[in-house]
C-alpha cells in the first residue's frame, strides 16, 4: 500500500468512482468522479489531530461497526493516502449544526466545507478490474441466528477481535460481555450525573441524601416541591446504583472466550445463496483458530465443515499442525442450527457424520465463515465497462485466458473474477498487469508500423 502511494508512476485516485468508459483497447477515455472529502488532499498531512477533537462518534466501518470512529476519519490507521475525509452523513457542520472544530484544530488549513465532487477524465490504454468482493450477510440464514445471538459473529468480525488494533485490543471478550461493559460505562456516567445533582441538594440543605430520604419517607418535608425533587432524584440514583452493582458483580464473572466453533460454508455451497465454494474460508478459519490459541493456549476450537479444503502450498501441513498443536479439531458435517443457551453461550446442533449422530454442543463464541459474494457494485461497473459477468456474477473469464474479460483491453484480477486467496490474488494481479502491458505494447507497435 505504501509502495503504491509512493510510486512515481502511480496516480492514486482514492475515494473516487468510474462513471463512464468510452473508446476501445489502447484508447479508452474514462470519466471519474472524485468524491468530495471536504479536506484538501494537497494540504492534509494525515496527522489525525482533527479526528481526535471531532465530537461526533460514528460506527467504525473498518472495525465492522464493532467500535466507533469520528465523523472526520482515515478509514484505518495505516490507510493510504493518509488524507482524512469528512463523513457528510454525520458531520455536524455539514448538516447545518454549529461545529467546525476540525477546521479550528487543523493547523495545516486543510478543511474545506465547500469542497464539491469533481469530474475528471483519464486517457488510458488498458483497464484492470480489481473490485474485490463482499462478505455474505449471514443474517439471511435464519437457522444460524446471526444478530439474534450476540456471540455469533462473522469471520471478518472475529478478525477484528483478534487484532491488537481492533475494538477489544486483541482480547476475545465476548460481544455479550462487551455489551454489559458498555452498559456499565453508561450507567456510571448516569450515576455520576445524578450524584452531582444530589451533591447540590446536600450542599444547599447541609444534610446527607440518605439521612434526608429516611426522614422524607417518614413523612417530614411534605408538600415542598424542592424536597420532592431531591427525594425523586435520590430514589432514581439508588435504582441506577443497584443496577450498576448487579452488572458489576456479573462482569466479575466474565472470562474471555475459550471454546470456539467455526462454521464453514455459510452461504457457500448452499443452493439458497451461492452454490460455489469460496475457496479461502477453510484456511481463514484454521488461521483464526490458531491465532486465538496463540492468544490463549487454553483455547479449543472446533471447525465444522463438509470438506476441509486446505489445497494451497503448505496449507494441509498448517491444518494438521493446527490439530496437533493449537487445540483445533475438525468435525465433518454441516451445522443445522445455532440456538441461544444459558449465559449467552450459543449451542451448535449438527450431525456428527462419522458417528451418525445428531449432537448439540455449547460454545463461548461461534464464528461464521461467510461466503465470498460478488461485490454489489459489480453490476453497475460491468455495465459501464461493457464486460460480461458469469452466472454467479463474477467477471467472466476462461481457464485459458484467466485475466482477460470479454472486452479487449479490460482485464480482471482477484476476487472480482473468482474467489481466491492472497497468493493467487497477488499472482493474478501481476498477470493482469502483464496482459495490459502486452496489449498496450502491441497496439503501439501496430501504430508505429502503420506510420512507417
Amino acid at each position, binding site marked *: 500500500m505504501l509502495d503504491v502511494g509512493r510510486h512515481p508512476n502511480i496516480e492514486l485516485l482514492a475515494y473516487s468512482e468510474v462513471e463512464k468508459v468510452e473508446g476501445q483497447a489502447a484508447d479508452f477515455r474514462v470519466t471519474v468522479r472524485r468524491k468530495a472529502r471536504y479536506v484538501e488532499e494537497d494540504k492534509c498531512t494525515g496527522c*489525525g489531530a482533527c479526528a481526535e477533537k471531532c465530537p461526533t462518534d460514528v460506527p467504525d466501518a473498518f472495525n465492522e461497526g464493532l467500535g466507533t470512529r469520528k465523523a472526520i476519519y482515515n478509514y484505518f490507521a495505516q490507510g493510504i493516502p*493518509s488524507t482524512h475525509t469528512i463523513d457528510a452523513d454525520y458531520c455536524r457542520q455539514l448538516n447545518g449544526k454549529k461545529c467546525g472544530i476540525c477546521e479550528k484544530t487543523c493547523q495545516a488549513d486543510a478543511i474545506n466545507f465547500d469542497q464539491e465532487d469533481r469530474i475528471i477524465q483519464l486517457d488510458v490504454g488498458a483497464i484492470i478490474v480489481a473490485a474485490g468482493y463482499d462478505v455474505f450477510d449471514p443474517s439471511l440464514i435464519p437457522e444460524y441466528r446471526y444478530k439474534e445471538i450476540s456471540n455469533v459473529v462473522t469471520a471478518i468480525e472475529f478478525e477484528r477481535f483478534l487484532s491488537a488494533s481492533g475494538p477489544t485490543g486483541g482480547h476475545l471478550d465476548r460481544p455479550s460481555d462487551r455489551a454489559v461493559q458498555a452498559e456499565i460505562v453508561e450507567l456510571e456516567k448516569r450515576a455520576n450525573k445524578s450524584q452531582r445533582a444530589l451533591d447540590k441538594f446536600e450542599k444547599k440543605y447541609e444534610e446527607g441524601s440518605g439521612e434526608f430520604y429516611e426522614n422524607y419517607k417518614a413523612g417530614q418535608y411534605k408538600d415542598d416541591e424542592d424536597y420532592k425533587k431531591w427525594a425523586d432524584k435520590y430514589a432514581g440514583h439508588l435504582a441506577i446504583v443497584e443496577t450498576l452493582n448487579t452488572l458489576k458483580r456479573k462482569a466479575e464473572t466474565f472470562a474471555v472466550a475459550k471454546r470456539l466453533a467455526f462454521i464453514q460454508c455459510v452461504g457457500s455451497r448452499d443452493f439458497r445463496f451461492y452454490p*460455489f465454494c469460496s475457496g479461502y474460508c477453510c484456511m481463514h478459519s484454521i488461521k483464526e483458530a490458531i491465532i486465538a490459541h496463540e492468544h490463549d493456549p487454553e483455547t479449543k476450537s472446533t471447525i465444522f465443515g463438509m470438506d476441509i*479444503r486446505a489445497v494451497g*502450498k503448505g496449507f494441509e501441513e498448517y491444518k494438521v499442525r493446527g490439530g496437533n498443536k493449537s487445540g483445533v479439531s475438525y468435525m465433518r458435517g454441516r451445522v443445522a442450527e445455532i440456538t441461544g443457551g444459558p449465559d449467552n453461550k450459543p449451542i451448535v446442533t449438527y450431525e456428527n457424520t462419522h458417528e451418525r449422530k445428531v449432537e448439540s454442543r455449547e460454545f463461548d463464541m461461534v464464528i461464521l465463515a461467510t461466503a465470498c459474494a460478488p461485490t454489489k457494485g459489480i453490476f453497475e461497473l460491468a455495465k459501464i465497462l461493457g464486460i460480461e459477468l458469469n452466472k454467479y456474477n463474477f467477471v467472466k473469464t476462461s481457464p485459458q*485466458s484467466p485475466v482477460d474479460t470479454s472486452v479487449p483491453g479490460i482485464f480482471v484480477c482477484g476476487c472480482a473474477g473468482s474467489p*481466491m486467496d492472497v*497468493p*493467487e490474488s497477488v499472482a493474478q494481479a*501481476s498477470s493482469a498487469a502483464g496482459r495490459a502491458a502486452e496489449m498496450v505494447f502491441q497496439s503501439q507497435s501496430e501504430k508505429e508500423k502503420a506510420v512507417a
Partner: protein
Amino acid sequence: MPDMKDEDIRIGVFICHCGSNIAGYLDMEELSEYAEKLPHVTLVQRNLYSCSEAGISEIKKGIMEHDLNRVIVASCTPRTHEPLFRSSCAEAGLNPFLFEMVNIRDQCSWVHMQEREDGTNKAKDQIRMGVAKAALLEPQEPIMSDVQIRALIIGGGISGMTAALSLANRGFEVVLVEKENKLGGMLNRVNKLGPTMTDASDLVDGKVLEVTEHPHITLFTSAKVNAAQGFIGKYQIDIETESGIKKIDFGVILIATGASVYTPEGLYGYDGQRIITQLEMERLLKKGLDPGIKNIVMIQCVGSRNEDRPYCSRICCQTAVKNAIIVKDQIPEAKVSILYRDMQMYGVENEEMFRDSKAKGIRYINYDPARPPEVESNHVRVYHALLGREMSLSADLVVLSTPLIAHEDATEISQILRVPIDENGFFLEGHVKLRPLDFATDGIFLCGSARFPANIREAVAQGLGAASRASIPLSQGSVVVEPIISFLANEDACIACGLCVALCPYGALEIQKTANEEKVHVIDVACKGCGCCAAACPQNALDINHFRDRQIFAAIEAGGAGA
C-alpha cells in the same frame, strides 16, 4: 571517502510538531534547547509539519543558508517519510545518505501520552543518539547496473510457453529451454481439460505454434541449463543443446520446470494395467475406454497427505471428477465411485463440476485414512466412514489419484541457479503470500507446478504473472539499488573462510581469487543489505553502508551516556 574533520561537521536538527501528535505530549521548547547544545549541531528548527511544503522548504533553506552537511528530522517513521526527506536533502545539494531520521512520534509521544516529562527525556535520548550517528554518516551513491534485455525460460510446458509468449509479445527477446524433444510438458499426456472439457492437445498445439513461429523466441528442445553465473541483469548461462554448449547472457530467468506424477509402486497393488494412475487413465480415455469396463473405482490421496508427502496436491480431486465425468460420457451405464478423504473442489468452476458429476450418478465414498481401502481382484473393499460399514465395490479398473511431486531436476536447477526449494522439493518463492512468483534473489522468477501443483487456469495465470514480474527490469533496462549494502571494509582481515557466502540468502557474495590471494567480493546489485554477513564475519571484515558498526556503536554509546 576520507573522514570529515570533526570541526567541519555541521548538523541541522528539524523537530516536527506533527500538529499536536508530538507537540501535544512532549515539551518542544525543551527539546529544541537541548538539541542546540549537542555536539556539531549548528541549527535547530521546529516545524509544525516537517513533511508539509513549508516544512520541506525550511529544511532546504537551512541546508543552503547554514551550510549544513548533516540533516536530522525528529518526527515520525522512516517507513513513510524517509524517502521524502532524503529527496529534499538531495534537492538542496546534500547527499541524501547524510540524512538521519529520529522517530519521536510512533516510538515516543504516542506511547508516552501520559508521561510528559519522561517522554520528553526519552526524545532527548533519541535525538542525542541520532546526532551521534549522523556525525559519522558517509555519502553514498546509488548503484546502477545494466540489464541484458533477454529472458531465459526453463521449461516449455503450458506455464513456460505462456510466459515466453507474454514477454516476446512485448518485444523482449526470449530463449526457451525444454528438456524434452518437444514442447507441451505434462499436457502432452492429458486428454481433456476440466471444466470446459476442451482437448488438451488443442491448447498445446495452439501455443506450440505461436511459440515456434514467434520472431522473438529462440527455442532449444532436448536442452538443459548446465551452469549459471551472475546476478540480476547479467546472468551468464551455459545451455547444453544437441549442437553443443551455447553460452548466452540473460537479464532475467524464469523457472517453469513443472512437476512429475508420483508413481504409486507398491500401493493398492498398482500394476499399470488394471490398477493405474489418473495420468495413465488420461491415455485410456483419449483412446476411448474399453466398453467392457463397467465398474471403476477411483482412490484419492494415494501417496499424499501422509507422513512421506504431507501436502495436498491440489489438483487430483478435480482431475478425478473430470475423468469420472468423461467415463460416464463414454460409457453411460458404467458405475464410477470415488473414494475420498476431503473433496478439494475449491472455487466456482470446480464445485460446479463436482455437482454436475453427482447429477451424472458418480458416487462419492468417504474413507478414513486410518482404514484405507483394500484392492482385491475384481473388487475394492472400503469402510464407508459415513455409513459406518464395510462395502465391497466391483472394480474392472482401479484408478489411483497420485500427487504431483517435485520434478527430479528441481534439485539440480536449484543448485545451479542458487535458489531454494522447500521441504517437499518444490521451488520456494520469496514470500508465500506477497511475492508468490519471485525468488528472494532478484531477477529469478517461478511459475506453474514448479512452485506447487497448479491447474491450467492457475498455470496460465502464473505464467503471465511471472512474465509480468520479469518484464520490470527488462523494460527499465537497468537496475538501481539502494547503496545500503554490505562491503569489505577491512580487506586485510578477510580470510576467505566463506561463512558469509554460505549464509547470504541472496547469493550476493562470492570468493574471488586474485593472483596470490582469496577475498570475499560483494555483488552490489544482488545485495539487500540485510547484514547477515557482517554479523557473522568472524574477522569483522564486512560492514554495512549507512549502518556501519561504528555508526551504530556511536548511537548506542550516546544512548547510554544519559542527558
